[in-house]
């Protein structure tokens, strides 16, 4: 397609504020009479609050109020998880399970170290902190567990009183047998029955026909999200409305959840958050329970209240990626085709709702290798660690970093090139993947071009030549090159778009998508501009503040925006175009079909000078009223869109519509990635010399934005492979790495010396402009390529868990065999 805006670089409307420091996060706001709140956090991994004595604190000058668990509501989160679990699992022996209570803002039964117990509001933060120190809380310690394997061990502790393992939505107690545990001690997981299971074909039969079988137990760690902006929030009430400055990934979707926790109707919540310092899945609508603290304290005191969340506190309540350990058996035919994949996963779930990562880990493997026969068995074990939630490529990044090195290992055993083995197993458009439905049917790819991405990448990276450097020593340094294929879900459907052509001839594009730095809030707006042939400098994107009346856009998460909201804006533009044509026909005669649009005019086909300008048409729309200026809207719109349309009706010609384009199958993006590393075998340090990735993300909408997503995601993934992690002392259940420094996200000097990218740029035929999301597959791509390059440098057998630190490399090289920490979590 010959687009004017789509596929072109541009300067986003928020860039000046960001570069000049004028953009503000929630914490940067002040309001008259504002108080500061401070939290009292649990000093134990699991306990019950017997009593609270705040009398000394409340006597202090400047202390205004205390908020405790009794005053905050419990709001049930949506059910998550891909695994098709049965209510009664094989080990439950018919015992009834107990639902786990949802995560509250404050609690009297803390289930992880650092969980907020209560909050105090005072004139300033120091007074609030000093007041917290004078509060006497009597805790009764309860049994705890921070390592899921220890909880599954015979006689091991349960993290929750309700049980230790999820069976569907219920917690039950599951302990393995002594025999199972012997396997763990030998460094393997037992391939036993598990609460969650699904299968395709017959893996056991297929293994008998395999030429090569890989059988390994591998592990991937938990990591905190480490957004630049912690989840601080500031709240005040005016005329019954709650004004909330919060750090939220999405905008339109958040009012309801903030309202639920603050005990106020959605319609009376104004969310202000036009600049957000990163989300990475951690600031999804269901995670804003802590906004209730300033909201309810503000209500109690009649003053605005600011709750600043520190980096350390953000490590406790700011979400994290779930750690997991997996035993995987893969059977290959001689020609490299994977005919059997049998995976058994234990996920450290955290103390609350089931994290979907382990289920997604299986779906992503299924999408990457399309194994002919596959079985998934998974166990989500409750742990007394901070809550997990989606983190950029949840389950997918773990899947890639755990599976991809094993695919390299298989390729070497089979004598097949590592790029080839991926091409042999990678899917094409229309192939089936994922979890079978009840009727046995599975979803299929709306488009899939991983083979093209691998081919282009291999050529660009000079793969065949560079591969010869594997194991080559230069002094004390050994080289390794790696290839990896990653994928992730890439788009949803069915959201609303809303735009207004104004009498001044401008195009206002309303967006309920959040602005977390991906640029997709603007990229998707450009789709509407493109369809109406509007110059970008006459377009205004309206975002980030629900009082500005925003439509029901897609959530900003799950790599869905570029797909979901570009479709919605395409629909809104189509609606506006239809109305332009109708107005022209009404005023100038003929039928709407006789008219075309372009150059900011609606004109008779073949005569661009005829007709009327958009500005004139907008004036006519206001005069005509009804559906033309938004006074009447389609019934299938979301209620949020309807309310917003009503509020701005009469400001111009409104295009407002739901994305009813539909699709067959699921949208999935792919990234092929390549890396070269150099490992110093005397120090264990390694450099990443070069990184290249090639994306299959459909039509490229914003090349510079795409580069940012591909490289940014890769760096996050590289951090996962290199250094980022949690560390717990199991005896005490207390985290040792709590801030940036010891969590070790990668520094600017730890990233590849050279980074490059490309995209196959083939449109997905099932979505109007053909774009698919990409932010998440990019993480696994970075993690996988570097992890595979390390294996190529020092050997397949030396490493089986991430992060791959200096200690593991050096100890293994020294011992000439694998030396790691067994299967223990969080070391």
């Amino acid at each position, binding site marked *: 397609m010959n687009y004017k805006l789509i596929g072109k670089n541009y300067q986003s409307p928020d860039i000046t504020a960001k570069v000049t420091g004028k953009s503000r996060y929630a914490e940067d706001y002040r309001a008259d009479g504002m108080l500061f709140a401070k939290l009292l956090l649990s000093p134990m991994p699991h306990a019950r609050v017997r009593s609270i004595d705040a009398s000394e604190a409340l006597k202090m000058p400047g202390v205004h109020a205390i908020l405790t668990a009794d005053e905050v509501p419990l709001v049930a989160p949506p059910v998550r998880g891909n695994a098709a679990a049965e209510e009664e699992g094989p080990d439950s022996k018919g015992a009834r399970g107990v639902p786990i209570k949802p995560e509250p803002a404050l609690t009297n039964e803390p289930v992880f170290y650092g969980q907020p117990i209560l909050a105090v509001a005072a004139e300033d933060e*120091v007074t609030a*902190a000093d007041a917290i120190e004078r509060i006497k809380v009597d805790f009764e310690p309860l049994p705890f567990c921070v390592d899921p394997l220890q909880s599954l061990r015979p006689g091991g502790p349960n993290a929750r009183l309700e049980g230790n393992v999820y069976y569907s939505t219920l917690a039950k107690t599951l302990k393995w047998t002594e025999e199972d545990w012997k396997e763990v001690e030998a460094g393997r997981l037992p391939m036993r029955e598990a609460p969650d299971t699904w299968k395709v074909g017959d893996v056991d039969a297929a293994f008998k026909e395999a030429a090569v079988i890989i059988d390994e137990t591998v592990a991937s760690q938990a990591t905190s999200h480490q957004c630049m902006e912690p989840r601080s929030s500031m709240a005040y009430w005016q005329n019954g409305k709650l004004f909330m400055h919060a750090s939220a990934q999405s905008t339109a979707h958040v009012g309801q959840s903030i309202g639920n926790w603050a005990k106020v109707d959605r319609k009376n919540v104004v969310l202000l958050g036009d600049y957000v310092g990163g989300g990475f899945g951690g600031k999804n609508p269901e995670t804003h329970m802590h906004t209730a603290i300033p909201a309810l304290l503000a209500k109690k005191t009649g003053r605005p209240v600011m709750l600043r969340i520190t980096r350390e506190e953000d490590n406790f309540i700011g979400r994290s990626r779930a750690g997991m350990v997996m035993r995987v058996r893969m059977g290959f035919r001689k020609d490299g085709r994977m005919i059997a994949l049998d995976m058994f996963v234990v996920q450290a779930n955290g103390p609350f709702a089931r994290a979907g990562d382990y289920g997604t880990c299986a779906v992503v493997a299924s999408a990457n290798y399309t194994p002919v026969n596959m079985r998934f068995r998974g166990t989500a074990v409750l742990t007394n660690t901070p809550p997990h939630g989606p983190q950029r490529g949840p389950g997918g990044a773990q899947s890639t970093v755990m599976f991809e090195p094993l695919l390299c290992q298989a390729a070497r055993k089979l004598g097949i090139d590592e790029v080839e083995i991926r091409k042999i197993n990678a899917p094409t458009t229309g192939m089936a993947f994922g979890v079978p439905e009840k009727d046995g049917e599975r979803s299929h790819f709306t488009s899939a071009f991983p083979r093209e991405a691998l081919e282009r990448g291999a050529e660009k990276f000079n793969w065949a030549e560079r591969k010869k450097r594997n194991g080559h020593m230069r002094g004390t340094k050994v080289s390794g090159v790696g290839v990896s294929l990653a994928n992730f879900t890439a788009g949803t459907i069915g959201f609303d778009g809303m735009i207004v052509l104004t009498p001044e001839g401008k195009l206002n594009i309303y967006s309920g998508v959040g602005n977390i730095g991906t640029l997709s809030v603007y990229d998707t707006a450009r789709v509407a501009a493109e369809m109406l042939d509007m110059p970008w400098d006459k377009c205004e994107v309206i975002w980030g503040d629900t009082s500005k009346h925003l439509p029901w856009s897609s959530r900003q998460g799950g790599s869905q925006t570029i797909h979901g909201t570009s479709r919605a804006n395409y629909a809104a533009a189509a609606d506006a175009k239809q109305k332009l044509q109708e107005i022209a026909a009404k005023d100038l005669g003929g039928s709407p079909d006789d008219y075309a649009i372009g150059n900011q005019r609606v004109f008779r086909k073949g005569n661009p000078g005829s007709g009327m300008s958009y500005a004139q048409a907008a004036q006519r729309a206001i005069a005509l009223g009804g559906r033309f200026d938004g006074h009447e809207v389609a019934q299938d719109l979301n209620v949020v869109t309807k309310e917003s349309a009503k509020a701005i009706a009469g400001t111009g010609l409104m295009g407002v519509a739901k994305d009813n384009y539909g699709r067959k199958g699921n949208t999935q993006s792919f990234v092929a990635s390549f890396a070269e590393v150099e490992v110093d075998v005397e120090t264990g*340090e390694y450099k990443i010399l070069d990184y290249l990735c090639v994306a299959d993300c459909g039509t490229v909408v914003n090349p510079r934005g795409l580069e940012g997503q591909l490289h940014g995601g890769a760096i996050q993934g590289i951090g996962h492979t290199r250094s980022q992690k949690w560390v717990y002392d*199991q005896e005490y259940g207390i985290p040792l790495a709590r801030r940036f420094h*010891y969590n070790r996200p990668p520094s600017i000097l730890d990233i590849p010396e050279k980074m490059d990218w490309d995209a196959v740029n083939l449109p997905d035929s099932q979505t109007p402009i053909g774009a698919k999301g990409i932010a998440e597959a990019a993480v696994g791509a970075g993690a996988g390529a570097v992890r595979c390059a390390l294996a190529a440098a020092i050997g397949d057998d030396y490493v089986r868990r991430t992060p791959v630190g200096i200690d593991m490399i050096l100890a293994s090289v020294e011992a000439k065999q694998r030396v790691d920490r067994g299967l223990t979590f969080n070391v």
Partner: protein
Amino acid sequence: MALIHDVMPAFELFQPVTVADTLALLDKYKKSAWVLAGGMDTFDWLKDRNKRPEIVVDISGVKEIRGVQATSDGGIEIGAGTILSEVVQHPLVKDKYPILTQAAEVVASPQIRAQGTLGGNVSQDTRCWYYRGGWACYRAGGNICYADTPSAINREHAIFDADRCVAVNPSDTAPALIALDAKMVIRSVEGERMVDAEKFFIGPALDITRMTVLQPGELLTAIRIPATWAGASFYFEKVRERQVWDFPIVNVAAVFVVSDGKIERSRIAVNAVAAHPMRLTSVEAAIAGKPRNEETAKLGGERAIQGAKPLAHNEYKIPLMRNLVKRAIRGQTA
């Protein structure tokens, strides 16, 4: 463990501008006074409320202890209050003792080097995450070392000289100063004393609550580097998990005088392997008179790790220290 983190409590603050006034304050308040220079060690102690001094003496305004100057014996004197980035950029240091330039340049991050001082870098407390996390361990006045229990995570802890405590000294500049045979100038109202850099640092066996010989009432005012090793052959290397903003897993600093292809004399020090930086005199003795080659390097490396005792998670530090000493003697990384 303190309940509140990241909020500095109230304390009495003094901001003297002369050494004399500083010493008078330190004498007056003795143990209850806390010396604050760049704040890079201090601030998280205070903000996390795990140490709560009543009196803080901020010496960042004392100009007398800032700057680098040549001394009459051909060496240099660096004021303890000199900012690390000034040390890095100073031509005198670069010219005579590039090993110190190198060591100071790999401390933490550019921001921290622009704030932290050389005196602070050598006087800083250990980074053991149990101790700094506020656990009531031996070093904090308790009766257990949490970093040396069966469940402890101690991959960055000591392989030498553990005595109840297994923490390590994290300074990058300390081994360079020991290798250069620097002298630490310490003043109090009683007068001035000078301590060899090697003796400035102490282990838990001597005093489990302190990392240096500095007593209450005393102030490190300057570091003198004698001319002895100016222009010698230097080697410095720091191994860390991240290439910026990370403490050493192990670092090594070494100076060599080589004549007729043989090592005439040398001084070698490593850090982050014990609660104090270690000068490796037995290695120096073993390699004296030998050519600076792979064989001597190997010998030195093996000698260096004699007596090392790993904890549950830090066995890798032994080959790492061996290899770093080997590389120092060999004189090149590869």
